[in-house]
Structures are given as structure tokens and as C-alpha cells.
């Protein structure tokens, strides 16, 4: 069904555009987006009360139509009709934060000058009222000569006024789109004077509204206490991933175990039983078990994003990151890369300087992403005893923290190397908003987590499952010759290939089972765990295959385990990340270079780790 009205949501970063978009479209989103910053436009469809079909675009936040970064340029190009193959919207909905109108109104005036119909959605009116800010919308409407509707994007019914307005909206007979032109200083000052005049006429605010923010910022931005808070927050995050997720993980494990036993009991031994038990359940099940940990990690990242804390952390780290040639702005993309490098790489669009952006993209994969978590968790669970350290910390959580920190340290070294080798960059501005604090919205947190869970389960159900079945196939055929003594997998395609690969990987301590598991791990890293599950399930000579964790604990040396951990700190990228880098940099040069340098680093790090551990254990 085609839409009869095309609207675009335009607004400053942080004014609640995405929340409003989610409220308008519900779960009927056409394009799935990665959570976090909206860096590419998102489209959705919805129907108003009178049955009008509306297509809505959620645009990246912009302070101005005169762009200083790639994401702002996307926004400008769409609303000004400059994007090839895409018409300008019929109506611009200017989303404004009612608590911060002095900043927000300027973009409204700029949008009005484009000549398209404009409606102002006065968002966060509930927060404004609570803070004692009184906005006279009738006066605002009169001063700007644009309809004003109040919205509360975080309430279920918060967009009613906007929907009614859209219902009444009639398309103008002809488009009056005015070509966009870059402003000069006098223009901008004139607009700001106009904004201040309208603001003084229509808004009354008490002067003391920022007391709470000031009090928090006194601690959070403090050179010493601020860093302490940041370290504690990150540390808590990694502890939580290990200790809080245990109960639901045990539940999922018990579920897949009982499913496996049921299938094994219910089906006659043979090909089908082996495919289901060793391929599907051992493979996909061993990945699915990490869902609780991944959701916990996302819960922290989403909550931190929502609260307004992240730019503060970026502020604290700006000076330090400058010594390796980056800016505080790189912090947010790098932190989201802990969830997944793909949204991280896309979020680098907010970095205005191309060189900074490229270096940030290059080191983003060194941030341990959530797909690496299953690999870390499996090995740590099998080799590191689960005991308390100094009464409060969990040793497994500590090791995980160390792995994450090594990724960060490696990233800083690589960035420094790029700075050292590259041309000297001119001084870069930072110019970053530190938005007012707010409580993370429960609704959008839950929506974000459901979205992540859906993406993860879909991955397990599609690409991971398909790879597992493929892997089971090449691990089972050709079958063992009659009278063979070892397990059948040794004679299969995978077994043969594994022995070839083992030659290359033996110096870093990998056996042929690991070598095989590395290959599907390129498609999606958590598959490496599933692949180990399948390979070991098929290698078992005894009766029932034991659980993967205890199996590897028996068959790998500590040096091999540490070496594999080191490998995965650097592990060459999954193909999806490389494809994203190719798209964002518009060249194959950078993704190829990235894969090559990460592969070399991974091999060297594993080699060093393996031999250091051997030496230490032997001596």
C-alpha cells in the first residue's frame, strides 16, 4: 500500500525524535536500524484515525542545515530535496525539546525557510511543566506562523495532537521548495536575534532549573572523581554481565539439554538424529545460551546512552584520547562497538574530521563486541575458577574485564601508530553538547532490548543455524572407512581441512578442532562456539558427548585456551563489519587493510601468549 503523505522528523540531537518515531510507527518499522544513534534515515508507515497512510522518516539529529558532519549532511540533503532519487518530504515535523527551546527554535526557522509546510512538535512538555517552564504555544504559533502541537513521545498517548493535525493537513497545490544555500555570519546572527525575541515572548522559565544537573556534573566532570565514576560504571557493567546472567543462562542450558535428550531418546540413531543432536542443538544451542549476557550488556549501553552520561565520559577522555590522535567524540562510537562494531562504525558519522573518523573505524573492531562474548565466556567458564576475589569481585568477571581492557589498550596503541605514521593533522574542534540528564525511559529500554533479542535469535535461527548444518555436513562426510579406529570426523572433509590448517595454527597452539571452528567464525564470531560444539560432539568416541565447557577443559592446555582468548581480542572481522566499513569508506582499500592488520596482530598476540604461558607453566 502506498502512502498518501510523506513526512520527515527534523530536530536537534537528543530532542526525542526517535522516541516519537517509535511511538508513531509502533512495531511496524520498515527498516530495522541498529540501536543507538540514528545515523541513517529510518522509514516507517502508520495510519491516522481517518485512514490516511503516512510514511515517516526519522532523520539523524542536526543542529543546523549547514552540516559539519556526514550525518548532518544526510539530514540536510533529505529535507532540502538534494538527495538523488528521493523527493523532499511533503511536510516537515520539527521536533523540539520544550525544555531547551532557545537552542531548538533556530532549526525551526531554518526549516521554515525551505518553503515546505512545517509543523512544530513541542516534545517533552511533561518534563518542561515539571521544571516550571511555561511555553505559550498559541503565542509561539502566532510568532512563527506555523502550527504547534504538544507531544510527549514517551507516553503511549503522547502523539494524539500531532496525529489529529496530520489528519487535517492538506497538501499544498504546488511545491514551494526554496533551494538551500549556505548562510553567512550575519544571517545566522539575525536568526538568533529572531529566536531570542520569540523565546522571550512565548517562554517563561525559572532561572534555577539546572541545579540538579550542576550538582551531578560537579562530580561526574571532576578530573579525579569523574574518572573514578567512569571506571566504576564500566567495571560494574562487566561484573554484571558475568554474575547476573548466571540464572537465566542455566535455565536456557537446562532447556537445550532436555531438548537434546528428548530428541536422542525419540529418534533412532542415524543420520537424522546426528544432524539434530550434534548439528542443530549442540551448535545453535551453545550460542543461544549467551542471550542473557548480551541483553545485559545492551541494557547498560542503552541506559547510559539514554541518560546523557556518555558525552560526559567523552569530555573526560578527550584530552587523553588526543595524545593518541583521537578526540572525545570517538568515545561514543567506540563504546557502542562493545555491543557490535557495525553500529559503532556507523556512529562514526558524527565525527566531522575524516582522518579521525577513519582511525576510529579502524580501531572499532578492537572493542570486544557482544559476538565475542560467547567465545570469551566459554573459555573463561572452562578454565578460570569461579571464585570471589577480595570478597566482592568475581574472578571470571575480572578476567573478562582484563580482556576488554586489552582490546581498548590495543586500540589506543594502533591509533597512536596511525598518528605517528600519518600526516600531522590540524587542530580539531570538539564542540559537543552535554545534554541535560534524564532518567532512561523504561519503555524505550524494553523496546531496544526486545529488538536486540529479536536480532540475536534471528541470527541464531538463520545464519548461525545454516552454518551449523553446513558444518555438520562437512564434518560427517565422507564417512569413515570400514574398520577405522578414530572418530568419523577425522576422515571427513572438515577433519582433512582441519589438519591442513593445523599446520599454520600449531605454532600458536591451536588444534585441528579450533582451526576448523575459526572458519565459520569469520561469518559471525559466535559461530566459533557453536562450531566447537558440533566438532567436539562429533569427535566424541564414548557414548554421549559431554557438555562443551568440560570437554575443552579436559582436552586443551591452559596455553591453548589463553592463546585463543588473545586471538579473539584481535580476531579478524566478521564479514558483516568489513562490508559496513566498505560502505562507510566507499572503498575496498580500508576493509582489506583492516582485515590484514587485525589478522597479523591476532597471530602475533596468540603466538606471544601461547609461548609465554608455556614458559611460565613449564618454569
Amino acid at each position, binding site marked *: 500500500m502506498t502512502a498518501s503523505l510523506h513526512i520527515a522528523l527534523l530536530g536537534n540531537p537528543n530532542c526525542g525524535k526517535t522516541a516519537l518515531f517509535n511511538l508513531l510507527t509502533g512495531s511496524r518499522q520498515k527498516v530495522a536500524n541498529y540501536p543507538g544513534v540514528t545515523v541513517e534515515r529510518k522509514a516507517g508507515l502508520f495510519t491516522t484515525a481517518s485512514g490516511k497512510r503516512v510514511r515517516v522518516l526519522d532523520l539523524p539529529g542536526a543542529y543546523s542545515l549547514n552540516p559539519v558532519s556526514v550525518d548532518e549532511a544526510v539530514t540536510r540533503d533529505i529535507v532540502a530535496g538534494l538527495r538523488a532519487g528521493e523527493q523532499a518530504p511533503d511536510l516537515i515535523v520539527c521536533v523540539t525539546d520544550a525544555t531547551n527551546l532557545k537552542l531548538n527554535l533556530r532549526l525551526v526557522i531554518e526549516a521554515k525557510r525551505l518553503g515546505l509546510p512545517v509543523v512544530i512538535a513541542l516534545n517533552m512538555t511533561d518534563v518542561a511543566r515539571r521544571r516550571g517552564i511555561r511555553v505559550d504555544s498559541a503565542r509561539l504559533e502566532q510568532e512563527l506562523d506555523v502550527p504547534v502541537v504538544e507531544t510527549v513521545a514517551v507516553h503511549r498517548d503522547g502523539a494524539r495532537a500531532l496525529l489529529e493535525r496530520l489528519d487535517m493537513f492538506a497538501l499544498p497545490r504546488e511545491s514551494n521548495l526554496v533551494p538551500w544555500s549556505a548562510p553567512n555570519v550575519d544571517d545566522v546572527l539575525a536568526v538568533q536575534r529572531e529566536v531570542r525575541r520569540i523565546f522571550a515572548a512565548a517562554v517563561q522559565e525559572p*532561572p534555577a532549573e539546572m541545579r540538579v544537573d550542576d550538582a551531578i556534573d560537579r562530580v561526574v566532570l571532576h578530573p579525579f572523581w569523574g574518572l573514578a565514576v567512569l571506571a566504576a560504571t564500566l567495571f560494574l557493567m562487566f561484573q554484571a554481565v558475568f554474575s547476573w546472567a548466571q540464572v537465566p543462562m542455566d535455565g536456557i542450558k537446562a532447556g537445550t539439554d532436555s531438548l537434546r535428550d528428548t530428541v536422542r531418546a525419540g529418534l533412532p540413531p542415524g543420520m537424522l538424529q546426528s544432524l539434530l543432536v550434534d548439528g542443530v542443538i549442540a551448535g545453535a544451542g551453545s550460542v543461544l545460551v549467551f542471550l542473557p549476557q548480551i541483553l545485559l550488556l545492551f541494557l547498560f549501553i542503552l541506559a547510559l546512552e539514554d541518560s546523557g552520561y556518555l558525552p560526559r565520559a567523552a*569530555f573526560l577522555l578527550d584530552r587523553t584520547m588526543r595524545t593518541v590522535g583521537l578526540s572525545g567524540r570517538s568515545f561514543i562510537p567506540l563504546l557502542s562497538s562493545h555491543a557490535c562494531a557495525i553500529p559503532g562504525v556507523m556512529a562514526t558519522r558524527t565525527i566531522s574530521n575524516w582522518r579521525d573518523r577513519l582511525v576510529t573505524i579502524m580501531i572499532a573492531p578492537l572493542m570486544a563486541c557482544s559476538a565475542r562474548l560467547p567465545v570469551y565466556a566459554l573459555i573463561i567458564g572452562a578454565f578460570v575458577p569461579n571464585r570471589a576475589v577480595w570478597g566482592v569481585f568475581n574472578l571470571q568477571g575480572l578476567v573478562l574485564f582484563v580482556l576488554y581492557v586489552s582490546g581498548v589498550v590495543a586500540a589506543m596503541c594502533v591509533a597512536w601508530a596511525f598518528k605517528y605514521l600519518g600526516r600531522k593533522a590540524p587542530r580539531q574542534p570538539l564542540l559537543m553538547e552535554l545534554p541535560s540528564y534524564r532518567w532512561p525511559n523504561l519503555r524505550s529500554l524494553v523496546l531496544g532490548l526486545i529488538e536486540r533479542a529479536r536480532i540475536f535469535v534471528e541470527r541464531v535461527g538463520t545464519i548461525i543455524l545454516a552454518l551449523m548444518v553446513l558444518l555438520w555436513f562437512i564434518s560427517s562426510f565422507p564417512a569413515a572407512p570400514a574398520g577405522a579406529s578414530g572418530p568419523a570426523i577425522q576422515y571427513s572433509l572438515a577433519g582433512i581441512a582441519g589438519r591442513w590448517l593445523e599446520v599454520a595454527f600449531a605454532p600458536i597452539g591451536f588444534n585441528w578442532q579450533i582451526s576448523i571452528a575459526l572458519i565459520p567464525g569469520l561469518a559471525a564470531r559466535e559461530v566459533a562456539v557453536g562450531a566447537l560444539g558440533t566438532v567436539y560432539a562429533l569427535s566424541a568416541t564414548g557414548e554421549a558427548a559431554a557438555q562443551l565447557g568440560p570437554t575443552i577443559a579436559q582436552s586443551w592446555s591452559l596455553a591453548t585456551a589463553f592463546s585463543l582468548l588473545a586471538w579473539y581480542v584481535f580476531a579478524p572481522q566478521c564479514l558483516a563489519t568489513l562490508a559496513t566499513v566498505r560502505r562507510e569508506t566507499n572503498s575496498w582499500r580500508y576493509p582489506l587493510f583492516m582485515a590484514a592488520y587485525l589478522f597479523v596482530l591476532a597471530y602475533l598476540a596468540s603466538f606471544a601468549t601461547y609461548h609465554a604461558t608455556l614458559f611460565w607453566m613449564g618454569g
Partner: protein
Amino acid sequence: MLVETLKARFIRYARSAKSLPVPEPEPIAASSASSFSLCELELGVTATVASICSPEPEQDRDLVLRLIELGFVPGERLRVIAHGQPGNDPIAVRLGGTAFALRRLEAGCIRVTRVPVISS
């Protein structure tokens, strides 16, 4: 219960506070003799933006435009809320209902004047 009490107290507080006079916008060049760089403003002291200038006009044109767009307009009140370390760089500045982090490079483009202390 607690939330209601806090809310009532906050509203009472907000109403009791007198509203500040709306600053009159001034032309960009109106930098008085007593103005100085934002880099030199002490922590926690409120000042008024006097002018936005740029050491190398062509190169920093977009930067100056963006500073004005974000609200660093002559007449606006601002206050430094934090200094990054080492070297007091970057600077966090409270401006109206929000705050911005600026490196010394950007802060150097903003000249401010002190607000006379009014005893109440």
C-alpha cells in the same frame, strides 16, 4: 508520596526565584575593552558573551557559524562548569538549558565579560 513532596517543593522554589532580565542582543563586533577569552574564565563564574571572533577567519568560518548556531550569541550568560585535565582542556560550559564541551581552540573564539555581582 515522596515524589509529590519533592515536586511541590521544587515548584515552590522555582516560583520564588525571580526571573532574570532578558538579555538584549548586541551586534557581533561589540566587544568592549574589558572582554577576555573564555579560556581565561574561572570555574563557576558567570559571564556574558561579548563577541565571537576568529583568529583565522576563512579557515574557521564553519566553526564560528556553528558556535553562533549553538547559542554563543553576544548577550548570553554562560558559566564554566568543569575543566578537563591536563591543561584545563577541554572546557565544559553551561549555556542556558544545556552545556557544551569546547576545546581551547573553540573557546578561544569566544570573548566574554564579567557580570557585575549584584548583592541581594
